[in-house]
């Protein structure tokens, strides 16, 4: 018998998953006909059943004997026949329980004789399958249910799979509840590439037994839960924001929607599902939202991000130097940073702990908690939308070296891979004219490597009853990757030193570098190279990198041919005009270099100051 063939039978119209225009996929329409299921069910039952033998039946017909057993012992014997050689009446009972019941009736009188029942020992060795055997069975099962051509894992009506039933996998609830996680583990180990899973007809009423699906197949696009017993919307919370690529969901044949007639309620269910599954487009064949718009939104209209912006070359040198040295000390010894802070310096952090919408698939395996434990940060978070008391607002800005050092030590130890992986970071740097300083905004991610030097929650725990709302005393928050934004205002100090006047840090769930990963790597590498010179402001001796067209913003580059890009860069460098005026000059000179220099010479004196890059 081909299991694979049957798998297809149960889900023969798999194209429906990919065809969102087909709105007629109601219930059985999409998933094979019920008659087919019925036949399979009988075959499975036969496979699962226990063979028995009956002696002493021949006082009447076999049919009468079977009917008697059914009435008297309440055990159904199926597929019976009389063995022509021995004259023994052979048949099958549904399962081991029925077989045992029947054995208890040994000697019961029928048509003037005593009936003798016995089991035929065929499957008993197989039923005590060892673990390694179990894995093998699961692996074989998985292979029989997987269709690599369409990346479909067909897990319809698993309980009735003859292979598994014969192995006793569903003999008890405990085995069946362990079965699915085991299945997922094996699927993971076998690196199955799965985009669609069909879990219809598995008597599921919640996700508890199958919750691991989201972990194993975070990229899952199509899922059928048809003909199960789902009746509560709440159970889908388990997968909230975990199946972020799910596009089509089939819930037909579940009480949840089938029993719902109130349009408002139905709408509510749809909305909630869309929230839980951010890319859900099709529910039971119905288009829920504009997919094109959705993909535009999720891939973002703002293309071609650059990771770095520096108002000018001097700012570039200062800020790359500053950041690379700063983060090195931040990871190494924060005490060494204190020379940068003075009595009026300020530092505060804010924690945006709300759940990320998109799963960072690169980190799910090693950070299954998604880096969402903010226990080390929350007690100091100065989120003004939450922290309203003046006292807390004041106490949560650390002012001066002592307070700032204390605050630093209450943050976990970290590793910023700026040197090895500068792509993970993005910076924007500006002059801060009033203070003759610079403002540096940096975005990126880091890895927590150890618990904080001092426990940030220790103080609050002594504050009486409030302590109980804090993190449990002895349970350290889990370390993970996090993302951050940080704004520094750095001003010149005495003797060419630097002072951090303002330092605002925002911590959020790990989000990777997608926001700026389309970028040329050159500017990022420039940061890393900046470390070579420890002196804070040392443009001398650091060779200035000659800008190339790759440094031009994407939106400008898009409108120019390569020759024009070359010219524009040349003009930017030579004239020190800002982008807008440089383009204007090029345009008015018909993109001719000679003409540009002439026009520039003629008009330089009359150009407004803001025509030049600051």
């Amino acid at each position, binding site marked *: 018998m081909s299991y694979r063939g049957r798998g297809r039978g149960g889900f023969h119209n798999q194209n429906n998953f990919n065809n969102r225009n087909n709105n007629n996929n109601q219930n059985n329409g999409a998933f094979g006909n019920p008659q087919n299921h019925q036949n399979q069910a009988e075959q499975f039952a036969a496979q699962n059943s226990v063979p028995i033998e009956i002696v002493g039946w021949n006082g009447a017909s076999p049919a009468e004997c079977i009917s008697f057993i059914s009435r008297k012992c309440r055990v159904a014997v199926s597929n019976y026949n009389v063995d022509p050689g021995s004259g023994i009446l052979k048949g099958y009972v549904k399962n081991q329980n029925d077989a045992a019941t029947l054995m208890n009736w040994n000697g019961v009188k029928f048509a003037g004789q005593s009936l003798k029942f016995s089991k035929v020992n065929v499957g008993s060795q197989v039923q005590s399958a060892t673990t390694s055997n179990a894995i093998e069975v699961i692996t074989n099962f998985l292979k029989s249910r997987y269709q690599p051509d369409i990346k479909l894992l067909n897990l319809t009506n698993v309980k009735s799979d003859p292979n598994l039933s014969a192995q006793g996998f569903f003999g008890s609830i405990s085995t069946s509840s362990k079965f699915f996680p085991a299945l997922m583990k094996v699927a993971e180990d076998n690196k199955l590439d799965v985009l669609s899973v069909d879990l219809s007809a598995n008597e599921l009423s919640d996700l508890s037994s199958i919750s691991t699906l989201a972990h194993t197949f975070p990229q899952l696009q199509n899922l059928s839960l048809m003909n199960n017993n789902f009746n509560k919307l709440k159970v889908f919370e388990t997968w909230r924001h975990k199946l972020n690529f799910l596009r089509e969901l089939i819930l037909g044949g579940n009480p949840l929607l089938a029993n719902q007639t109130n349009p408002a309620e139905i709408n509510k269910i749809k*909305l909630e599902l*869309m929230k839980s599954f*951010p890319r859900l487009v099709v529910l039971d064949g119905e288009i829920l*939202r504009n997919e094109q*718009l*959705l993909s535009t*939104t*999720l891939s973002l*209209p*703002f293309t*071609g*991000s*650059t990771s770095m*912006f520096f108002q000018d070359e001097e700012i570039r040198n200062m800020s790359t130097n500053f950041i690379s040295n700063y983060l090195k000390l931040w990871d190494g010894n924060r005490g060494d940073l204190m020379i940068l802070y003075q009595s009026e310096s*300020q530092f*505060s*952090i*804010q*924690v*945006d702990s*709300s759940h*990320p*919408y*998109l799963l*960072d698939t690169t980190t799910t395996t090693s950070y299954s908690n998604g880096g969402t434990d903010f226990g080390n940060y929350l007690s100091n978070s*100065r*989120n*003004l*939308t*939450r922290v309203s008391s003046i006292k807390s*607002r004041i106490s949560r*800005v650390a002012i001066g070296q002592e307070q700032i050092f204390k605050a630093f030590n209450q943050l976990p130890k970290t590793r910023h891979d700026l040197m090895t992986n500068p792509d993970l970071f*993005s910076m*924007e740097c*500006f002059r*801060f004219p*009033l*203070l003759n300083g610079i*403002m540096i*905004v940096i*975005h990126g991610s880091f890895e927590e490597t150890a618990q904080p030097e001092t426990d940030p929650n220790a103080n609050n725990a002594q504050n009486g009853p409030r302590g109980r709302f804090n993190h449990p005393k002895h349970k350290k928050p889990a370390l993970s990757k996090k*993302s951050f*934004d940080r*704004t520094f*205002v750095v001003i010149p100090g005495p003797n060419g030193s630097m002072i951090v*006047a*303002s330092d*605002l840090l*925002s911590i*959020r*769930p*790990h*989000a*990777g570098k*997608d*926001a700026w990963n389309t970028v040329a790597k050159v500017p990022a590498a420039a940061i890393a190279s900046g470390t070579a010179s420890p002196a804070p402001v040392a443009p001398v001796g650091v060779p200035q990198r000659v800008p190339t067209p790759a440094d031009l*913003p*994407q939106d400008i580059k898009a409108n120019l041919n390569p020759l024009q890009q070359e010219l524009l860069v040349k003009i930017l460098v030579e004239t020190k005009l800002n*982008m807008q005026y440089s383009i204007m000059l090029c345009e008015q000179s018909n993109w001719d270099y000679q003409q540009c220099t002439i026009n520039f010479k003629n008009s330089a004196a009359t150009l407004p100051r*803001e025509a030049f890059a600051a």
Partner: protein
Amino acid sequence: MSVDFNTVATEFCHFYYQQFDSDRTQLGNLYRDQSMLTFETSQLQGAKDIVEKLVSLPFQKVAHRISTLDAQPASPSGDILVMVTGELLIDEEQNAQRYSQVFHLIPDGNSYYVFNDIFRLNYS
């Protein structure tokens, strides 16, 4: 402290986003000629260009939701640095874009204007 910078920062952000979400053509009042905007890849200077850029963004309806907000006074003359993280809901989508934004506010008479505005989507 004569003016509570925390209150200024919070009220400013609420006002700014409310204005942005209801009619962003009116945001020009909050910028000056020397103001700078960094919106993802683009750098712009001057109220007129900044508003033009903001108006040209490819969405009709937009709603900002602030998740966190922190502020520090940034100079003796009353500059304020505001750092915000939040969610951007575009065109009635259920899915929000998360962003972080830094405003450098400078006092100007009885009010403040945005000297520097740095907006970055987080893609999380």
